[in-house]
């Protein structure tokens, strides 16, 4: 796999032996959001852990998700640390709770994925639109022939639960 892939000044390094990220990104490049699903108990995990955190089984398959979820928390960066983000401030980073496997196997557990809140065209979204409870869907930012980053954009679906934003 050609590397590193450079994105916003960062060298993203995915060695060939890091199959969990390598294959995750290859699926993302095909615009599929996938997670590992345990062959024994059927539970899914993110990121792609080597064994199942619930039953320790080593067997797994890639499972595609709908890509739909709800903003569980967020932050708005005004003072960027990474040089490649300096011209993007303020930008919003979201923690998205995916629709699949919500509150499973215990009420505290869910598939939650971090991304930026972007417009459908992948430009950073107006940070004033970020709020807990807003519905989002995955979009893919192609970085190379073998790699794309999953990002999230507002889907316009009805809000889920109480919607809240800081100062809103």
């Amino acid at each position, binding site marked *: 796999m050609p590397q*590193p892939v450079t*994105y*916003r*000044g*960062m*060298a*993203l*390094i*995915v*060695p060939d032996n*890091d199959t969990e*990220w390598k294959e995750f990104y290859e699926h993302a490049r095909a615009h599929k959001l996938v997670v590992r699903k345990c062959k024994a108990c059927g539970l899914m*995990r*993110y*990121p792609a*852990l080597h064994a199942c*955190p619930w039953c320790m089984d080593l067997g797994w398959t890639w499972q595609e998700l709908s890509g739909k979820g709800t903003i*569980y*928390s*967020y*932050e*708005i*960066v*005004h*003072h*960027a*640390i*990474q*040089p*490649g*983000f300096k011209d*993007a401030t*303020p*930008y919003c*980073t979201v*923690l998205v709770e995916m629709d699949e496997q919500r509150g499973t196997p215990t009420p*505290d*557990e*869910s*598939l*939650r*994925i*971090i*991304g*930026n809140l972007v417009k459908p065209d992948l430009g950073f979204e107006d940070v004033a639109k970020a709020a*807990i409870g807003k519905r989002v869907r995955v979009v893919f930012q192609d970085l190379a022939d073998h790699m794309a*980053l999953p*990002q999230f954009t507002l889907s316009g679906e009805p809000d889920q639960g*109480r919607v*809240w934003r*800081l100062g809103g």
Partner: protein
Amino acid sequence: MANLKDKYCIVGVGETEFSKNSGRTTKAMAVEAVRKAILDAGLKASDVDGMMSYQNGDSTFAPFVGPDLGIRLNFYMDVVGGGSSTEALIGLAIGAIEAGMCKTVALFRSMNGYTEFRIGGTGARSAAPVRGADLAQVPFGMRSAGQNFAMTFMRHMYDYGTTSEQVAHVKQAHSRHAVNNPKAFEKKRVTVQDVLHSRWICEPLHLLDCCLETDNATCVIVTSAERARDLKQRPAYIMGVAGRVSKPRVDYHWAHGPISRVAGYYAKDIVFGQAGITPEDVDITGSYDAFTFTTMLQLEEYGFCKKGEGGHYVSSGIIELGGKRPNNTSGGHLCEGYTHGMAMVVENVRQLRGTVDDTCPGAAEGKHTYDYSPGKCRQVKDPEITMNLGWAMPATGSALIMRK
């Protein structure tokens, strides 16, 4: 360590100046801090035969510090880590002594946290390659401690109605403490409004919600209660310790909520169980203030108030000198200097001795005025028990309970 309660002590403490321009190596600073702690304890170099430190690839190592002071080591260990390491290593030092590996351990943290390696990730580290577990968040502009922790506080605001104004009281309180600490880097009273009007760094964090970045070294010396008896200082007896206790999925703690819960949820039973006390018995807390809200999250998680009422607790006056249970009486990371937790243990040891270094003329002999107005006393009156709540991140924390 139920059977080890009160059998080990901190007998010496020391630190360098807190600055933004040490002009020295981490080795030079570590030597000074360890030397001061040895002298503070009334030990000789030959009495110290164990040395430990923690760092993140930004500091010197124990075997390069001991020899400067003529110390021959029977045991040393340098570990990777930042916040929450102090308490964990104190526990490991007890273990090393208990195992018969050594008798007295000096434990240091030395960092040019402003001039060489800035913890916030600013500088050389900001453009470091991203691989492995970091791929799940760093490509999204989430690299610094503030960026890593902010979503936890945001969700706490959502879950419990906690406000920026409430946690700003932490900075206000610690700044008042720092003004009474001659060695504090930032000796300036800051108000809640100052915090709220400071610029955003990463919502919900304002600039003044974030701690200082400083150059400094700090040291504590751990030995047995038996050995402590003939030393110079009143020992601070260790009643309980918990080290780097973690939430489930510490690799990616977002997977296991509630994310407004922090590791103290799991650590509290260990440390209070060992000590055989409850939060109500604690006179002074040292709750890690990398940010205003980390202090709040830990105080509530360890049970100093009900879960979700941390915002009320830290804004009620309880945590200020003169309040029921002052927190970080030195000014902490927000105002004294950034030490990855060590200075908060140092401060509690001095509080238990009754000899904090304020401007009271008899401070060194334990004669204090208990007048907490600006520039005056910061000694708490007759504290019996202190507690340190160390923080690495929402998913990992440590704790230490000491008594006089």
